[in-house]
């Protein structure tokens, strides 16, 4: 097969591409330049100058052609601007998921296919299995590293042209293999932060770009104004830290962000019981194979990249995904993705638009 390997310059994609070469594929490496300010010193994540160099040196070592492709314009539009827009609307987006959906498995994959490649390979931890449903997307063997959640937006045609060579291994094995192969990325630390917010300070990033939008923090039970804030976008449903409330709660217990009204610039805080939701309505559903129907289907639902799955029944209603949870989930923000599984197999994904609280305020 002619394989285009996305090389971030990290240990995972390095080993993934090495395995593709070993498997006898005709492999070309590509590093995606996602940011024009790639040379900012001290920045981490997937778009720094060091990473481009590391990727190039791994390609040298494997003796494969290597190119840097500039997808910074698409990334700025489809991922960063989307990120800002979502926060501006009071949602909590997942930019890694969006990057997979719009950049790696759309812009890159399209381009690869147009150029005559058969597939794109990445260092994601997930498995693609030939099964009853065609190319099935499954959880990785390494539960801690499993990235099926952020790949849950992929559809059948994308899975047919994607390769995840690391899905059957645990991270320690991958690192050990990188060491064994003498790849210079073997000891690089894992990236955790959002790549375009290298210092991890999302609130500051949003404030710089969206401007200060001062408003009030309100006790949802009493209606009392507890504090001021400089932008509702700096808050996420379920957040407890950094609220800087000067007035203690009547019951003396910690309060959490339970609701955000972006238009009124009001952030509501209350007891954690108000965070419990037992129904999710998701919009823009995508399916790895057949879509669900209006008949409730047993499945499990996951709402965070490394969250635990919850037993659920889901069905489609007027094009929206309705997920009834067997046990409640705490602190679910709109804009997050809900990904449905049948065992280890990903069924599909949708964006959380509404939730139903177990306890009404």
């Amino acid at each position: 097969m002619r394989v285009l390997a996305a090389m971030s310059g990290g240990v995972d994609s390095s080993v993934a591409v090495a395995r593709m070469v070993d498997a006898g594929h005709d492999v070309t490496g590509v590093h995606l330049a996602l940011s024009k300010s790639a040379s900012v010193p001290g920045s981490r994540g997937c778009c720094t100058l060091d990473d481009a160099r590391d990727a190039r040196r791994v390609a040298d070592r494997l003796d494969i052609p290597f190119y840097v492709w500039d997808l910074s314009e698409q990334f700025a539009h489809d991922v960063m601007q989307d990120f800002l827009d979502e926060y501006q609307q009071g949602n909590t987006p997942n930019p890694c998921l969006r990057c997979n959906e719009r950049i790696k498995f759309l812009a890159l994959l399209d381009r690869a296919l147009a150029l005559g490649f058969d597939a794109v390979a990445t260092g994601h931890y997930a498995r693609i299995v030939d099964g009853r449903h065609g190319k099935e997307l499954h959880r990785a063997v390494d539960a801690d590293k499993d990235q099926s959640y952020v790949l849950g937006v992929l559809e059948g045609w994308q899975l047919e042209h994607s390769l995840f060579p690391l899905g059957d291994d645990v991270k320690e094995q991958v690192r050990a293999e990188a060491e064994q192969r003498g790849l210079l990325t073997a000891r690089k630390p894992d990236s955790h932060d959002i790549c375009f917010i290298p210092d991890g300070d999302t609130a500051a990033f949003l404030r710089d770009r969206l401007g200060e939008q001062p408003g009030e923090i309100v006790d949802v039970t009493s209606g009392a104004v507890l504090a001021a804030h400089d932008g509702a976008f700096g808050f996420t449903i379920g957040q407890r830290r950094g609220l800087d409330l000067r007035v203690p709660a009547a019951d003396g217990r910690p309060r959490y962000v339970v609701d955000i009204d972006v238009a009124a610039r009001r952030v509501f805080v209350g007891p954690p019981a108000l965070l419990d939701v037992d129904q999710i309505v998701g919009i823009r559903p995508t399916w790895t194979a057949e879509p669900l129907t209006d008949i409730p289907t047993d499945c499990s639902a996951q709402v965070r990249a490394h969250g635990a799955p919850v037993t659920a029944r889901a069905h489609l209603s007027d094009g929206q995904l309705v997920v009834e949870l067997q046990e409640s989930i705490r602190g679910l923000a709109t804009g997050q993705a809900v990904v449905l599984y049948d065992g280890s197999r990903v069924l599909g994904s949708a964006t959380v638009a509404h939730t139903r609280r177990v306890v009404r305020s």
Partner: protein
Amino acid sequence: MLPSAQRRWLEVSGLVGNPSSLHDSGRRARRIVEEARESIAADLHTRPSAVIFTSGGTEADNLAVKGLFWAGAANGRSGVIASAVEHHAVLDPVTWLNEHESAKVSWAPVDSVGRVDLDAIQRELATGLVAVCTVMWANNEVGTVQPVAELAQMCREHGVPFHTDAVQALGQLRMDLQALGATAVTISGHKIGGPFGVGALLLEPDVKPVPVLHGGGQEREVRSGTLDAPGIASFAVAVREAVTQQEQHAARMRELRNALVERVLAAVPSAHLNGDPDLSGDGRLPANAHFSFDGCEGDALLLLLDAAGIDCSTGSACTAGIPEPSHVLLAMGAQAQASRGSLRFSLGRDSTQADVDRLLAALPGAVERATRAGSPRSRA
């Protein structure tokens, strides 16, 4: 590297001695350097004392542009004239002078084939405030030859030092520096089959730029640093071959290039030739062919041709390796998108008709593919 240049490098690298030393082995090394200096001066019709050896074209350009600017600025001249299509080795020092030394830069515009506007330069020279004027002999991307003789003459009339980067021109064009009358001319070894890391600034003997490298005072106290005797000796051999074979080489390149251009334009409907369209005249480097392919991504095309064993270039890339829209094409009036869909095919001593055949076998399919790849679904 030319076999003769390679042999000379090996020969000299076996000798010990620093050309700056006064003892016997130093004197022998010095003699080798001086013979190389005389050889290059004779080949290019200038005086040996004009030859300032450097580490290559970039250093020679920096020395000429910054050094002549600083010398002029000391006398109250703070202007720089540079063409908008200069190589980065000139473009970036000029930009730097503007940003850090308050140089008033006048970027001379070019026409649609990439040739500078002499009237604009004439007007700027007339201000009397120009410290240095720099216009390349021939453009490295689109191959357009600049009217350097007129420019040198104009600058002389206004008493302004004229520098030209001749890295691309050496070996492809006839070069008589005495007839040219420029103040400073940059040449480089690796472009003519000499060693990498050696070049020279051919600098009129009575001109004294402020040095960029300070130190032991070598090279007329203009360029300090221990001289690389093997590199210099080898460089001189390459210059000799470039000059003696220039006419014959240029004729062969022109014939091959013209066939390439004709066949590419016939085979690929979306192809346009950039630069001077007169393929028989002296206005274009004989080995240069540069095309834009409408609606086509240059880096996708590069990947496909690379896979077919054809080396070509999309222009410059940033440190991370991202291809950038060519400032040359932009200055010639191209849109950023069109400039990304452009490729240069350079012919060399080893190029043959078979190479052109191989390119033509691969190119039409590759352009079609790369054009399809250039319209990503995510934009919809």
